[in-house]
C-alpha cells in the first residue's frame, strides 16, 4: 500500500460511503415503482454494485496480493453453480412429465408450483419406538 495522508484516506472512504448511500436510495426508490420481476433484476444489479464497491474499496481486494481476489472469485463461481444448476433443474422440471413432444404441442412451462399440502399426512402414525 502506498503511503497516504489521513485526510486522503478520510476523503476516499467518505466518497465510497456516499456512493453506497446513494445506491441505497436508488434501490429503495425503484422498489416503489411497480415493475414486477424487473424490481428484482434492478435490486440484484444495484446490490452487486454495492458489494463490488465494498469489496474493492473497503476489503482492499485491489491490493497487490492476488490470492484473496482468487478466493472471492472461486467462492462466487461455486455459489453461482449451485444456484444456477438447482434453479434450472427446478424450472425445467415440469417438462419432464411429457418429454419429447413435438415443439408445437409443448408448453413453455407446465409447472404450476409445488406448494400444495398433503392433507392426511399427520393422520398416519409416525414411526415410534
Amino acid at each position, binding site marked *: *500500500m502506498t503511503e*497516504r*495522508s*489521513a485526510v486522503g*484516506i*478520510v476523503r*476516499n*472512504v*467518505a466518497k*465510497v*460511503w456516499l456512493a*453506497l*448511500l446513494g445506491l*441505497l436510495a436508488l*434501490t*429503495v426508490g425503484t*422498489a*416503489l*415503482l*411497480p415493475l*414486477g420481476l424487473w*424490481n*428484482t433484476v434492478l*435490486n*440484484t444489479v*444495484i*446490490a452487486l454494485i*454495492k*458489494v463490488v464497491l*465494498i*469489496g474493492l*474499496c*473497503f*476489503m*482492499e481486494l485491489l*491490493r497487490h*496480493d492476488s*490470492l*484473496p481476489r482468487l*478466493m*472471492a472469485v*472461486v*467462492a*462466487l463461481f*461455486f*455459489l453461482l453453480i*449451485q*444456484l444456477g444448476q*438447482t*434453479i434450472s433443474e*427446478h*424450472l425445467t422440471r415440469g417438462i419432464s412429465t411429457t418429454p419429447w413432444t413435438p415443439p408445437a404441442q409443448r408448453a413453455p412451462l407446465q*409447472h404450476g*408450483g*409445488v*406448494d*400444495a*399440502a398433503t392433507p392426511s399426512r399427520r393422520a398416519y402414525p409416525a414411526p415410534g419406538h
Partner: protein
Amino acid sequence: MSLTTIDDAGRLETVRLGMWAFLASELMFFGPLLLGWAYGRISMPDGFAWASRQTDLWLGTLNTAILLSSSAAMALAVQLSALQLKRQVGRCLLACAALGVVFLLIKFYEWHREWAEHLFPGPDFAGPAHTGAPYFFVVYFSATFLHAIHLTIGIGVTLTMWRRVHKSLGPLPQPALHAAGLYWHFVDVVWVALFPMLYLVERTP
C-alpha cells in the same frame, strides 16, 4: 501463533489469505438461504410479494444505512492504522461497534413487531397460508437471525480490537485489525444482499 520464517508484512498477507478463505466458506454458508429464496421467488411469486410488503421498509432502509456507515467507520479504522493514528483508530472502532449495536436494537424491535403481528410461520400465521408467505418468513427469520449472530460476533471482535488498540504501547496490530475489518465488511455484504431479497421483492401490488 509462532511463525519463525515470516516477517510482519508476510504475516499480514498470511492472515488476510486465511480470513478470505474463511469468508469464502461463509459465503457458501449463506448459499442455501439464497437458493431457498430464489426457489420461492420463482415458484411462489404472489406469496413472496405479499409477505415482503409486510416487512418495515423504512426501518430496513435505516438499518442498511446504519450498517453501510459502520462499514465505512471500520474501513477508516483499518486504513488509518497504517499511519499509526492510535486515537482515531480507536474512535472509529468504537463508532463501528456502536452502529452495530443500534442495528441490532432496531432489528430486535422489528422482530418483536412481526411476532406480535403473527408473521412468524406456524399455526396462527396471519397471512394466506398456502401461497408461499409462510415460506418467505421462514427464509426471513432464518436469514436475519443468522446475520444477527454474525453481527454480534463482529461487535465482540471489534470491541476486542478497540481494547487492544486502546491499551497497546507499540505499533498497532495490523494483521488482527485487517482480519476484524474483513469480517465486519463481510457481514455488511451479507446484509446488502439480504435487504433487497427480504424488503424489496415487490413493494407495490
